[in-house]
């Protein structure tokens, strides 16, 4: 087990290296620079742009830039944003709480919807309930979030005028009002993301439960005279959840990456919107940091998922 763990970590290092080289090269080869607005302003002397390019090291050859970036990254220095001249880690940490709250809530909502519905439709396959649930699940993951987001805004903000459609991370209220305002503004983005994830998860839960429910030990449990509730909760769901848990572990990095489109629509100041605005502004250090952390998380959560699998199912052994 430990030898396996150490071997996986050692393999992960060159993988992350390779990822960083690929990311850096692509970003460096992509055209454009962060000084678009300075260009068309006749009052900014062209030397200013040339100076800034030199100061930010944009004129150095690619390998030199990569080595510099890597050296400072290893020392824990993530560099600074070309656009705001603030350190990249500060920028990311500012966005992290909102991202975790909104995406975490969405994931919880997704699980809360998927688990009962998926289980129920698997226990009564091809019943009316299953047909309806399946139909909605298909609609749910077929509709893109930018579409449902806009429909929600149109319905709840503009026609009904119930909910605000601009998310404000700083709410100048205290006590219950603070909680109320946060709840009100989170409803739409969380619902859009959560129902989308829930729809996908429902299908997974359904098929997992369907597989387990036919197995012999479930029949044995029933034959023992256990109540239906205990059979389902203790014997069926618990075993069916093994693949679902792995799936969820693999989804954790997406929480960090944020939901770019949804964040843009509702102006949620998450990491996704930071990433998109950095890409639009050619703010290389920020893009590099976010994508790099994201890829590290993917590698890491793959490893965790593999380990988790063995822990959940002792038949799997590591060599």
């Amino acid at each position, binding site marked *: 087990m430990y030898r396996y763990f150490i071997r996986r970590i050692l393999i992960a290092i060159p993988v992350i290296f390779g990822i960083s080289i690929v990311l850096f090269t692509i970003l460096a080869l992509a055209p*454009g620079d962060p000084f678009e*607005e300075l260009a068309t302003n006749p009052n900014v002397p062209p030397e200013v742009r040339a100076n800034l390019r030199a100061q930010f090291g944009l004129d150095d050859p690619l390998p030199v830039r990569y080595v510099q970036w890597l050296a400072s990254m290893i020392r824990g220095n993530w560099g600074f944003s070309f656009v705001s001249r603030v350190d990249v880690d500060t920028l990311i940490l500012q966005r992290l709480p909102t991202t975790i709250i909104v995406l975490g809530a969405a994931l919880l909502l997704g699980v809360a919807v998927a688990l009962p519905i998926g289980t129920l439709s698997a226990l009564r396959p091809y019943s009316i309930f299953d047909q309806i649930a399946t139909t909605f699940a298909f609609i749910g993951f077929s509709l893109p979030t930018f579409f449902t987001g806009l429909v929600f805004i149109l319905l709840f903000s503009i026609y009904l005028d119930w909910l605000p*459609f601009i998310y404000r991370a700083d709410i100048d209220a205290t006590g219950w009002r603070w909680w109320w305002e946060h709840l009100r503004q989170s409803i739409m983005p969380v619902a859009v993301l959560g129902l989308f994830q829930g729809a996908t998860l429902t299908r997974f839960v359904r098929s997992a439960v369907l597989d387990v429910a036919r197995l012999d030990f479930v029949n044995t449990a029933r034959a023992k005279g256990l109540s239906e509730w205990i059979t389902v909760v203790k014997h069926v769901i618990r075993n069916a959840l093994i693949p679902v848990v792995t799936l969820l572990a693999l989804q954790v990095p997406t929480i960090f990456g944020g939901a770019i489109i949804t964040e843009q629509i509702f102006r949620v100041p998450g990491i996704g919107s930071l990433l998109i605005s950095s890409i639009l502004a050619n703010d290389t250090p920020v893009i590099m940091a976010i994508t790099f952390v994201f890829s590290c998380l993917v590698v890491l959560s793959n490893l965790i998922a593999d380990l988790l699998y063995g822990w959940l199912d002792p038949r799997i052994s590591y060599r």
Partner: protein
Amino acid sequence: MDERDIRGLLNDVTSGRLSRRAFVQTMVAVGLTAPMAAQMLASAGVAHAQPKAPAFTPTRRGGGGPLRVLWWQAPTLLNPHFATGTKDQDGSRIFYEPLAAFDPDGNVIPILAERTPSLENGDLARDGLSVTWRLKKGVTWHDGKPFTADDVVFNWEYAADPATATVSVGSYRDLDRVEKVDSHTVKVVFKKPTPFWYDAFCGNRGQLIPKHVFEPYKGAKSREAPANVKPVGTGGYRFVDFKPGDTLRAEINPNYHVPNRPFFDAVEMKGGGDAASAARAVLQTGEYDYAWNMQVEDEILRRLEQAGKGRVEIWSTGACEHIQVNFTDPWKEVDGERSSAKTTHPTLSDPAVRQALNLLVDRASVQEQIYGRQGQTTANYLNAPSRFRSPNTKWEFNVDKANQTLDQAGWKRGADGIRAKDGKRLKFVYQTSINAPRQKTQAIVKQACAKAGIDIEIKSVVASVYFSSDPANPDTYSHFYTDLQMYTNGPGAPDAQLYMEQFTTWQVASKDNKWASRNITRYRNEECDRLWKSATTEMDPVKRAAMFIRINDILIQNVVVIPVLWRSGVGAATAKLRGMDLTGWDSTLWHLPYWHKA
């Protein structure tokens, strides 16, 4: 319009036959700026317009609740000397103030100065070599320290230092020195007679930062200053919290130097998203009070306005959407660059072809169908009010006339309907940035050109690439590796001098200057060069204006640029918001302490 015409107009203003505002608009119409027009009025002895008495005179400070504004491009830093775009200048302007600002008519309005320098009050030297600023007394920074002449001098030292790498360096590096006369008087000394004295310490690039906060961070350490994102200014609101690219919060400054101002208790600037939904949040749901830069089709804005919760604000600016004509050959490589100044364009060098193109831009359709209230046809660029209509600077859309012009010049239609002469075909690549209104404009021009036997190939480049300064990328606007291109620019500043330098020989963009120089059309004309040089030191504002107008006429007559549309500033405000006095010559928030709700 020449010097004599302008003098005649000025006489009309002095005798009351023409209003100040009409005069200013006329000057803006021929490519000058409102502040330049205001200077001409001052030189003619027409008193500065008294700033309009505010419609609302509060009896106490604050009490207005929060003001919520939406900037769909959020500010990313709050140091005015590093502001890369209007978003950063606006974000900084909540906290920082200049010595003087520019109102919609271009008047120099004192903010941190006690009065506007002028020849009459003796603060402005007659030889144009210096200007004395008297600072308002009793002004304090948000941390309680007094605002003095030392701060003003420091701003010059800070911004002019190349190691600080400020964006405002252009306004400060050419000053000979800035002297402290006494604790509240500063003398700015120029190296040569400077008609544009209202640049340093005025408007957006004149926002003043405190010496005691920024002194340790002058030069190479400038990036590390904590105050770059935590401003300490003199403005009506002081800093609470800032998340770059998202939210900026400010609270009322209880010690603001104008009595009973500001009105709102707090300001919240939210960023992100897109212009259309920002318009919705103000005009339709009323979640926000003001939204900036409404780059949304006018038809949509009109529909949103019908909700009755807000209105669209429109004001004139100096920005002009125009088509540039390449005078060099973009398809031949000479010494490692295309569009080299050593070449001439094979077909566009024929004046008849350029004249024909000028006749084929249907400005009225572009204005009506695309921009609506957000722009005015070039009537305001070339068609000064009727009494100055010059036969040479009129625009029209006339396909027949374009066909005639080309026929007479010997361009014959080939079998495919495209005109050619000596084996050279009229086939042009026309590029611009990706932006829906621009693509629609391209289509309108392409259609008209097809009717005159000119084949236009449309090219659109992502804005962040098109406007980048990357010398290795051939698709930037400054490389101009196509025959025609279109974008908007304008004087930006209250003076047209730098704007007009775009058509001088020494500014021709080339490989040698990494395409950083600003003459993109590569047009060269000795008269333009000469006029521009004399205008830089001409102290008589009227003579100077006449020179710039002459340059403008040369450009139009020779079809160096084809102006398409004068663009207006567009914002959205809730129905009750008042007192914004939006101007095209300064920040949207220049008058923020006076904003209020009726």
